[in-house]
């Protein structure tokens, strides 16, 4: 793992000068508390994840999907984490770290509202004042999450710039940080941004694959053949992949890998991006009707890091799109971009329609209503199960309660073959 903030050519620290000392201070705290467990930071983090968060989350065999695809399908149930998504792993880690660093205030951006609600919960739990920036359009798409943040005592500030989604909220939060950097910690919501954020957020989320790897030994009797996770910014993706990345099937001498006395198996890793309505881009309008930066993006610099981006030929950042606001982002974590370039992670894309079908399928076959983000992973499984074999772990990154309104509207707006007939309730929603 990288310690200089670079993943191949990706990563780095492309931020205004005023933020550099804060990032240096954060890097120092990351090394001491997270990597070296100084003052027992990681012990306290683990304990709070268990007691407050409800970890470990189960690795559950999905019997009906297994039968449907003639595979052993296992679900890593991050939807059962407190708050209903994997987001708490990172938010709790960072708010706790801010406390250890002596910061007095938390700020965060949010897209779907999942990171915002997780940060608001963690801030309330750890008694830290908290301000959340959220795009105006996302506020309208995710009202229940706005209420949840307010209920936990956070201040929610609407961002009206641009199209009012995640990338504008990130820019606005960076502006706040530039003015308040001495007292404030910015809890970034994904494995994006300047070093050390991508590495640190990965490490907080890596608990997902740490558990999954151990649980797979018990339930599958070894490693899974494939691991599938949806990818927007990439925090659940990196968390789900982190402890499987080295299972690349390559021969290793004992000098390379002194810890492992067993030969490394091969685990295939699939990052499922939002294909939106199309993978084509409208350069004239500056719009990419998808959020598939790993599959279609070009290298560039955004929000503090060099990574793969949806941008026009001049480098202006495109407006992305997805049915799921949590995946709706024009960039992606630099480590994922590197893992794709080195052929360790396979990027795939699933469009809005297929994701919506995945949403209904998991709800009906397994009794789990997934987040629309998560539904992309199940859309991929449906379309490509024939290419997979043996055992597959799919990360259920979040539950779908937050998405009910948009899932019903989106289902209504198109012909979804496996959707229930909701017409009798149409008036009452």
């Amino acid at each position, binding site marked *: 793992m990288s310690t200089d903030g670079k993943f191949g050519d990706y990563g780095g620290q492309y931020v*205004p*000068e*005023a933020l*550099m*000392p804060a990032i240096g201070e954060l890097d120092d705290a990351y090394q001491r508390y997270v990597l070296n467990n100084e003052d027992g930071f990681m012990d306290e983090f683990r304990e709070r994840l268990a007691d407050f968060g409800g970890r470990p989350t189960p690795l559950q065999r999905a019997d009906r999907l297994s039968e449907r695809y003639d595979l052993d399908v296992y679900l890593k149930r991050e939807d059962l984490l407190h708050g209903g998504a994997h987001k708490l792993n990172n938010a709790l880690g960072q708010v706790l770290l801010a406390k250890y660093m002596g910061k007095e205030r938390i700020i965060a951006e949010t897209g779907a509202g999942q990171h915002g609600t997780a940060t608001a919960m963690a801030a309330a739990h750890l008694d830290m004042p908290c301000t959340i920036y959220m795009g105006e359009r996302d506020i309208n798409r995710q009202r229940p999450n706005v209420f949840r943040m307010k209920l936990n005592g956070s201040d929610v500030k609407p961002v009206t710039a641009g199209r009012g989604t995640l990338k504008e909220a990130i*820019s606005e939060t960076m*502006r706040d940080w530039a003015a308040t950097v001495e007292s404030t910690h910015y809890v970034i919501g994904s494995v994006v941004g300047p070093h050390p954020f991508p590495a640190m957020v990965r490490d907080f989320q890596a608990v997902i694959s740490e558990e999954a790897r151990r649980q797979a030994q018990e339930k599958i009797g070894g490693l899974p053949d494939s691991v599938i996770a949806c990818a927007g910014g990439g925090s659940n993706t990196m968390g789900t992949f982190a402890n499987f990345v080295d299972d690349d099937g390559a021969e290793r001498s004992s000098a390379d890998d002194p810890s492992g006395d067993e030969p490394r198996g091969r685990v295939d890793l699939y990052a499922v991006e939002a294909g939106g309505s199309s993978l084509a881009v409208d350069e004239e309008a500056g719009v990419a009707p998808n959020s598939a930066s790993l599959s279609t993006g070009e*290298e560039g*610099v955004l929000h503090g890091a060099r990574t793969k981006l949806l941008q026009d030929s001049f*480098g202006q950042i495109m407006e992305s799109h997805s049915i799921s606001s949590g995946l709706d982002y024009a960039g992606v974590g630099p480590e994922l971009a590197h893992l794709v370039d080195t052929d360790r992670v396979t990027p795939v894309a699933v469009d809005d329609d297929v994701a919506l079908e995945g949403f209904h399928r998991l709800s009906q076959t397994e009794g789990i209503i997934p987040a629309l983000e998560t539904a992309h992973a199940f859309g991929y499984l449906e379309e490509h199960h024939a290419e997979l074999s043996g055992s597959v772990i799919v990360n259920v990154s979040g539950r779908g309660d937050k998405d009910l309104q948009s899932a019903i509207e989106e289902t209504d707006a198109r012909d979804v073959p496996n959707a229930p007939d909701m017409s009798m309730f149409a008036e009452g929603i």
Partner: protein
Amino acid sequence: MAENEAIAAAFADGPAFIPYLAVGDPDYEASKAYVEALARGGADIIELGLPFSEPIAEGSTIQNAIVRALEGGMTPSRFFEFVTELDVDVPLVCMTYYNLIYQYGRSRGGAPGPDAFVERAAEVGISGLVVPDLPAEEADPLREACDDHGLDLVFIVAPTTEGERLERMMERVSGYVYVQARLGTTGAKTDVSDQTTRSLQRLSEWDVPKAVGFGISSGDQAARIVANGADGIIVGSALVDIVAEGASSERPVEETAAELEAKARELAEGTREGAARRSPDVDAI
């Protein structure tokens, strides 16, 4: 490290007044008239903002200007065309974000990397670059391209920049340093903090002109900052406010240009006045 002669000359006769406008705000032709008005008003150097879609270092005033300029169709190619057509005889510094510099070669069918942008900038007569999202740590490829084409690379010194970071920056800077008067993003404020004085003291041993920016909006403030030892003042938001008002009230371009020229004159005079007020011991730092 190459030093751009035009920029060095602008600081040679005393403190410099350096105004900023976003190019293309609110449209191409009006923007040209506004930049020329700044030159008539007494600008010694002009910073031309090339609009980027995610301007993370800007406050709302300049962010809105950038949105207006992008909506008006401004692109890096149009920007270079704009500079070619501009009728001013002061050095021009381009302020933009790294992704536009990095991608310019790709937009012309080549590989990404800073060289193509810097080459084109030199060709149209740009003397220097300011890149607010490019800290010294990531700046070597751009520094090299600037050396190859004779451009200055200006860095921003924040109130929080100290020690090794300051040294790393000073090893790479040329032309002038942009001393950020206070923490936060750009934007007009009435107070000019004593952080400014401390920053100037911290930089005193470095032999490079120190231009102070962030929050300066009047000739009086300019005079006070120069009297405290600054070698130049940079004004953006206070001028962009005038452009914004012109755009929203739809008054004739000439009227807005006249107002910009008057404001520039006030700031330029404040800058000269501040130089005259300097006490000998202040002059030493």
